[in-house]
């Protein structure tokens, strides 16, 4: 394996994904990440001269909708809140976000 991943990089990625990881998981993730990067490195050796970059393969364009309210597809308040652990007065409840001063 030629690609090397540092502990700091793994921590950073875990932070971005908001997934806490143990030391053990860190080690197995290191191997997995390095393996993935190796595959990418291999892909980079492919000659793509004359190939237009793209970010989608369906070939679709302009899939748009008219500005019409679709009542049928809307949840009732009770249904919207159905899977929530805590609700209050019709709201979803989460631990206080400390953002204000």
């Amino acid at each position: 394996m030629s690609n090397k991943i540092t502990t700091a990089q793994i921590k950073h990625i875990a932070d971005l994904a908001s997934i806490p990881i143990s030391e053990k998981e860190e080690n197995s993730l290191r191997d997995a990440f390095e393996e993935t990067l190796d595959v990418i490195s291999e892909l980079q050796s492919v000659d793509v001269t004359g190939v237009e970059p793209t970010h989608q393969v369906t070939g679709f364009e302009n899939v748009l909708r008219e500005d019409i309210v679709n009542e049928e597809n809307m949840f009732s308040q009770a249904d919207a809140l159905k899977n929530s652990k805590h609700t209050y007065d019709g709201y979803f409840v989460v631990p206080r976000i400390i953002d204000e001063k």
Partner: protein
Amino acid sequence: MKTDNTNKNKYSLVCGLEIHAELKTNSKLFCGCKNDPFGAEKPNIYTCPTCLGMPGGSPVANKKAIEWTIKVGLALGCKINLFSKFDRKNYFYPDLPKSYQISQYDLPFCYDGVLETSFGPVGITRIHLEEDTGKLLHKTIEKVNSAGREAGLGHGKQVSLIDFNRSSVPLMEIVTEPDIHSAEQAKEYAKEIRKILKYLDVADCDMDQGGMRLEANISLAPIDKNNPSSKLSKLPNYKVEVKNINSFRFMEQAIDFEMGRQAEILNDGKVPTQETRGWNSVKSITFSQRTKEDSEDYRYFPDPDLPPIRYSRENIEAMRAELPELPAQKSKRWATEYGVEERYSKQLISHEIFANWLEESFKICVKEKIEPNKFAGALINKNIRVSHVMSSIIAVEEFKKLSQTDEVADDEIISVITDVISQNNDAVIKFKSGDTKVIGFFIGQTMRKLGKKVDNKKLGELLLNELKK
């Protein structure tokens, strides 16, 4: 903290604005849920799997929201990206159910425009379309039902409540170049943007409700002492972003405050920290908002659920052709065509329908040999009350009646004036001590007693004569 004059001569403001405005489409940006977060009677009643970020939700972009964004771009002289797309901006926050916001990264619908202000042009960097987030409410729980899902919430517990009625409402973001050099210019620019959005009828821009939100990127550049009028050669190496400003006045105050704060730091030979700050409208200060270290790492990538959008040059030209004449252009044309002062027309032009009604009225004024400017002045001073549902002919008629005067002999007027003067000794003393504003009071009193309409100018002259006796 106010910028004192020494600082004003030493530093020049370098400021760019980001304005967010919610578009008033019927439905949301990526689903058919109702777009009416402020009118909703209850929280979480306009949601579906897509705007709640549930598995299986599939976004489809609202054509009207895109067209309106392009319309605003054209009105602001922007170039239009014929090929554009939506991207995912990844971050975690409870008001963002999918853990990403659908926005536009490198191919916004509009770019490179300009808006003229009386202080100089302000370049528009880009206008893009994105989805709004849910609304958070911070609350201390007071009373809980002992049963159900409120049970786990103890009395006095501090929580945040989320309402997703606003989730995925179309939100347009207009970003400027750092071309703004005073708080007044920032205010003028923002007000003009609001006017244009309202005039084009694409956004209500209700600032109290958060339908329009302002962010200012503020830094200071030293002024070249030898050549103070020279353009800034390079931008400062830092910028402070002030977020969540919900009124024009607060924006002006926030900019002034930051200018003072940053000048003090620069005077000490230091560089202000590059950071995001909030505005505390109670204390009238900005405060540092600690953001997570990695919060800027958004990892944008094209949203695979939303195919790209392509317009032809003809499509865009057709949209341009449909664009109405904008308030600023209209004001200028009315000044030359009808002699209506811009200070009047700028106040009067609010919506396209009313503007058309006004022009119709001006045309009738010209036919009737009435000065349109006087008619406009009467509207401003609310001497005649009108609406666009009233016909222009009737409105001009009303104005004619109002400006018609009765034939009254000078003697009759003077005798009433003498009465009024003798009954209002206090006002006479005020007048004699130099308070000329009381003349309005005398005119009003005389008019009422007389019970007839006389020419204001003539009445004023007669009054002055008597008062000076």
